[in-house]
């Protein structure tokens, strides 16, 4: 095995929900970490050499320096800790950071835990305003702009330029919510039709309510370590197929959509992130060489843009490919088997970690039988902030 390759030792997750009023944000992190400890086959956190807290927003969580508080709550002091933030990409950027910490030899094991309370403890109108704070405040937020509108404006150009249709992105909204029905931890499984999506109320045209992802409370945790550490401390490591976090890529793009003119249809940062990750993992034909993927479906059409930018299909062909079922559970490359952000939910700091957990559990063969992808050996996560402003692509592979 490659030198100091970070292995996934254990994972933990809370159910994602619209209102976990039995918990505050610390309680959620505790729940996910205890689940991770159990899953990793370690007795406690004493041998863990580093902590990494993943959360986006002091406003949503009503707490600054949440990293220090969670680290303390989990009894990790005086172990070192770092907090990572990267908007919507926070969880994936956290894992990428942890990858580098293990690879570099800074530590042999690192507990990555992420959480957010984006659910009903805050009115959805206020939530939209808080998310708009992560746009360019004086130029985009103050004119009344919303992220839904920024994404919708991109999709409108995609439709105009490539002939992409609302029915094609509605397919994503239907399929991911259907996938969520096979995931007991998903927030909002739904059995809906394309027409239901097209006829739901418009939010920012062309996007309707059912094209939009969820606001969630939840937490996720993942323990990364070297193989040597795992053999010494994890009673479960030898029990299941070894899964390594083999490659990570990151790319960025302008904050404001208008500054990308004339390239408005796609995510250049995502393309850059994917190319880096593929180069590092030796992937030359991603559609063939990746078996399962969790894509960042913050809006239904974003998955169409993603399958293009990740190189699964050429730019402009995402709409027909998605509508033909290429990315359904029985398609060439099943994506968002968890339900994605549309069906499973999206507590921001946990989202990227939860995507990785779905992929890793697919590789371990540990998800519910209905959503298990057979013979999956390599999986990908795609996560981004803003309108593709920070993009992270992480790759996990079985090593047996």
């Amino acid at each position: 095995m490659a030198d100091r390759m970070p292995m996934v030792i254990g994972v933990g997750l809370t159910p994602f929900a619209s209102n976990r009023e039995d918990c505050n944000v610390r309680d959620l992190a505790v729940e996910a970490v205890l689940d991770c400890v159990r899953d990793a086959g370690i007795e406690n956190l004493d041998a863990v050499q580093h902590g990494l807290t993943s959360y986006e927003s002091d406003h949503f969580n009503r707490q600054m320096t949440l990293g220090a508080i969670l680290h303390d709550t989990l009894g990790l002091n005086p172990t070192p800790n770092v907090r990572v933030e990267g908007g919507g990409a926070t969880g994936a950027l956290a894992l990428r950071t942890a990858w580098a910490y293990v690879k570099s030899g800074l530590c042999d094991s690192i507990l990555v835990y992420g959480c957010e309370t984006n659910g009903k403890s805050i009115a959805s109108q206020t939530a939209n305003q808080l998310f708009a704070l992560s746009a360019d405040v004086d130029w985009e937020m103050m004119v009344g702009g919303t992220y839904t509108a920024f994404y919708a404006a991109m999709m409108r150009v995609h439709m105009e330029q490539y002939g992409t249709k609302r029915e094609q992105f509605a397919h994503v909204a239907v399929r991911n919510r259907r996938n969520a029905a096979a995931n007991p931890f998903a927030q909002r499984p739904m059995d809906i039709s394309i027409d239901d999506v097209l006829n739901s109320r418009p939010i920012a045209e062309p996007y309707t309510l059912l094209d939009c992802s969820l606001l969630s409370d939840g937490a996720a945790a993942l323990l990364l370590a070297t193989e040597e550490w795992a053999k010494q401390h994890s009673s479960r490591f030898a029990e299941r197929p070894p899964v390594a976090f083999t490659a990570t890529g990151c790319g960025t793009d302008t904050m404001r959509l208008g500054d990308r003119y004339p390239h408005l249809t796609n995510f250049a940062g995502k393309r850059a992130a994917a190319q880096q990750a593929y180069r590092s993992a030796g992937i030359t034909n991603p559609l063939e060489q990746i078996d399962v993927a969790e894509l960042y479906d913050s809006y239904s059409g974003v998955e169409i843009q993603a399958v293009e930018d990740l190189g699964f299909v050429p730019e402009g062909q995402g709409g027909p490919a998605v509508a033909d079922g290429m990315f359904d559970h029985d398609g060439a490359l099943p994506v968002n088997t968890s339900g994605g952000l549309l069906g499973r939910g999206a507590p921001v700091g946990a989202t990227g970690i939860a995507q990785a957990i779905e992929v890793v559990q697919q590789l371990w063969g540990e998800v519910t039988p209905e959503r298990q992808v057979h013979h999956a050996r390599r999986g990908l996560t795609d996560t981004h902030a803003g309108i593709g402003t920070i993009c992270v692509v992480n790759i996990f592979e079985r090593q047996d």
Partner: protein
Amino acid sequence: MSESRVTSLVERKNIESKWVVEGDPWEAFRQIEVITLELTQSYRHSLGKYSRFFLELENGRFLGTSCPTCHKVFAPPRPLCPDCLSITAWQELPGTGTVQTFSIMHFPSLVNDDVRRLETPVTLAYVLLDGGSTLFPHVLKAAPESIHIGMRVRVAYAAAPVQHPIHLMYFVPLEE
């Protein structure tokens, strides 16, 4: 519920352990109290090196900035050219332009009185100003069904007082 001395109290209740799939180790922690927590801030918010754009809007002039090295024209303005790191120069633009994309927002961010006063739905238009290199995002006041990519528009200047100076302007259809 008995009377409480907690003025922000929303509710007290026992939560069913519906979140725990098997067993409930938290049985003794299911009594919860929900309160209203209010956090509000206001800032003395400087518009910094972008200020002149807003000052000139009040004079009915629309400014971008141009890069002396690579000649790109930024609207919204950028004091620093991100392509070559040159310090830019202010440049007046005629304020006419073309819609490159847009979205009709049924739920705009109600962040200030200016947005709250707008009639919904509100169109967010991305306009390539004549002489500019980037798209300027702002409200386009036009009948939603008339709006399309390629539509010619111009900057209009607000007559009434505004809360945020970005609302000293908006876009309207250009009558040519």
